[in-house]
């Protein structure tokens, strides 16, 4: 809690300060919007695991705050919800900016151009890369402090930052933007508990590979520690892969009076998928003699190529989804949805259709690994779950915490074996 902490904190304060402002504007513009279902946030706060509050109890005052806020956090979250909600409603209807809220590519390109117009020429040059730059496309990592493309969020003015976040609000659904916000908050939380200046929401980057365009090809990157949004638009159709999300702490945490557990729905959906299996299916899905201390097909680190290391043939182990009942298959679809539905219709619809078709499920395996073959415990180091389809590739692994040592944290990857980077490298 020394000097280092101040900078990122003040940044996140600005974030928090600015957002309600926009929201109020939007609210007044689009009339009232009711506050109800934000599944992600409410579920995270209500079904909150004890371990979460325990974990942050390293600092004693926090823990008491935490506990109380977990229970009463409906206030906080509902505040949050309202705000997120109104963001979204504004997506659907009216505007705070000049962009008409059609929710399609036109709106995204409009917000992207608005963002560009807030930047100096130098900043614009640093933001936009050539669409043929395969090195730039593949430059992303799970790690903090590595070199990234584009503009550092912490270097932007308030207006520029608002415009950048507006782009992400349109590029993502509410579910997706909640993840983004939660992961930023998680990094600020790591700063708060003494993680150092490598962490913090200021150290995230936004970049455009190619000029934003409704019909031409371009790519939107937003990422930092534990986050890589790589959305390639090919003729207006989006491919949000590869996508990396990770979070420490995994359990819900509180910062600046808001409670977050950004990847809880992803983790819970995968666990539910495996818990929906019969005992024999469950043990067929278990990867005997295999251990994963991280995802298998991880960051591309600017290598300019597609990964070639997916399991093939008899190495594709697990339970075949087409052998499952409709109810069990619905759990698989739901788990896939926690990733794919982070994106709006022009991205999600075609992918979800492809990933969950009968043909696809006939070639999709779900498998898991961990210390014991009897139960899936996301609180144990080495617990690993994956969905391996003809195209879809989702992995989630539980690793020991780096800063929050008393709990595991998630690393996830979502890839498309055929359409990573929109197949444009």
């Amino acid at each position, binding site marked *: 809690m020394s000097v280092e902490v101040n900078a990122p904190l003040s940044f996140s304060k600005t974030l928090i300060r600015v957002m309600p402002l926009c929201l109020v504007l939007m609210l007044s513009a689009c009339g009232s919007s009711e506050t109800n279902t934000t599944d992600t946030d409410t579920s995270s706060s209500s079904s909150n695991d004890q371990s979460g509050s325990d974990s942050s109890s390293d600092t004693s005052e926090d823990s008491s705050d935490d506990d109380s806020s977990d229970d009463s956090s409906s206030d906080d979250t509902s505040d949050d919800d309202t705000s997120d909600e109104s963001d979204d409603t504004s997506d659907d209807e009216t505007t705070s900016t000049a962009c008409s809220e059609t929710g399609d590519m036109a709106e995204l390109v409009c917000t992207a151009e608005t963002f560009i117009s807030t930047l100096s020429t130098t900043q614009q040059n640093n933001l936009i890369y050539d669409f043929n730059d395969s090195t730039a496309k593949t430059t992303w990592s*799970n790690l903090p402090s590595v070199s990234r493309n584009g503009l550092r969020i912490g270097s932007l003015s308030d207006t520029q930052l608002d415009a950048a976040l507006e782009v992400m609000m349109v590029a993502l659904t509410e579910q997706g933007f909640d993840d983004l916000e939660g992961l930023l908050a998680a990094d600020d939380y790591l700063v708060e508990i003494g993680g150092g200046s490598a962490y913090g929401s200021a150290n995230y980057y936004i970049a455009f590979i190619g000029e934003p365009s409704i019909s031409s090809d371009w790519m939107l990157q937003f990422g930092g520690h534990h986050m890589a949004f790589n959305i390639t638009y090919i003729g207006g159709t989006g491919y949000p892969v590869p996508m990396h999300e990770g979070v420490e702490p995994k359990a819900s945490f509180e910062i600046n009076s808001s409670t977050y557990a950004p990847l809880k729905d992803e983790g819970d959906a995968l666990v539910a998928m495996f818990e929906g299996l019969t005992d024999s299916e469950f043990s067929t899905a278990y990867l005997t003699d295999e251990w994963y201390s991280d995802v298998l097909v991880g960051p591309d680190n600017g290598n300019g190529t597609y990964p070639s290391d997916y399991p093939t043939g008899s190495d594709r182990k697990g339970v075949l989804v087409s052998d499952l009942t409709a109810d069990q298959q619905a759990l698989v679809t739901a788990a896939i949805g926690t990733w794919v539905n982070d994106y709006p219709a022009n991205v999600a619809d075609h992918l979800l259709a492809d990933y969950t078709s009968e043909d696809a499920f006939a070639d999709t395996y779900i498998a898991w690994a961990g210390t014991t073959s009897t139960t899936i415990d996301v609180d144990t180091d080495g617990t690993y779950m994956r969905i391996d389809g003809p195209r879809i590739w989702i992995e989630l692994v539980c690793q020991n915490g780096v800063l929050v040592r008393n709990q595991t944290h998630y690393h996830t990857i979502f890839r498309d074996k055929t359409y990573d980077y929109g197949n444009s490298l």
Partner: protein
Amino acid sequence: MNAVRVLLLCLSVLVSFATHAHPASQSQIAISRDYQQVKLMLTLPLDQLAIALPQAGQWQYQASPDFHGLAEYLNQHMSLSQSGERLNIALGRVSLTRSQEVSEEYEVNVVLSASLNTTDHSKLVLAYNAIQHKVINHRTVVTLVNDIHQGTMFDGPVLLGVLRYKHTNIGISGSSSDIPVMGSIFSHGMAHIVTGTDHLAFLLCLLLITGMSAKGRKWQQQRASVTDCVKLVTAFTAGHTVTLIANLLLPDPVVSNWVEAAVAVTVFLSAVHVITPLYRGKPYWMAISFGLVHGMAFSSALNVTGLSAVTTTFAALSFNLGIELVQIGIVCLLVPCFNIWRQTKLYPIIRIILGMAVAVLSAVWVIQRITPYLSDLDTTLNSSMLANLIGITIIATALRYVCTPRPALKNVKRVMS
């Protein structure tokens, strides 16, 4: 090759952060190849190894860890072959150290070696899946830290690749004949002195005062002989050859800022000596003893990790021969020039100005090398700058020579002889 090095740099950054922000650490294999043997230096993260080899989990709690079983394990999971034949790998030193990045984590360091058939120049193939056979996502970064057949002695390690899931083989390209390698070491020696500003500054100081004799606090003007100068720089070379070889043969060569600072101090002392005599004895002793100090610093220019003593000695000798050749070249160019200036009244002024310039420069180096100050001051020299400096000196001397009235010059010459 450059791209590979850049990649290596990125990777090393990643590796260092990986251990910082990431519990799933990678293994590393550093390979060095000499004429007769190849050495593999393995660094295995203990927590990952313990998943694949459970007994390893106990090592960090044992006063003297029992590495029994490691040899057999590695033998099962790695092989090195050449022309289709498996080489015999011998297990050397094994040690357990704390990771430098994360203090709670341990690393197992293993040195392995295999003898090479000196007549077989075909490529080596390393097949390796230790840890990875169990920890599916485990990655092992393989670098060629040194190869007598490649330029790694100066250009640093080369990334060979990353062993990982589905990629469990790596090739080390075949070797070439010996002479070009020693030749390149020779030319690197030449390049090293051309860009070694401190070395050149010291040489300049030696040349400014050779042939002169100290009288009280002042220098007596005399003509220098090229032969004397060559002997002097050879004495200097002899000095640094001794310490260079001695230092390189140590298990861990001494490379420190203090050595670099000591070099700067010797330059400073010799610069002061140019301005006003500090020492009356034979200049050879000064050249030899300062050479001993400079030799210590050269060891950072030559990477001999994993090479045998014989190869190291030959490499150091080739390197120093390159240095010596350039020194003699400089002597042949500069000493005649200095001799012409010595015949003028300007020489004492020139000598003192040059001496002061070197003194200031070396004072800057001392500060740069032991304190954090002045670090952004760039005093490096490149070959074209050096050529320009020597060119200017020669042209100025030529002008001076042409403008000097002949009779006067003859007079001086008569006096001198």
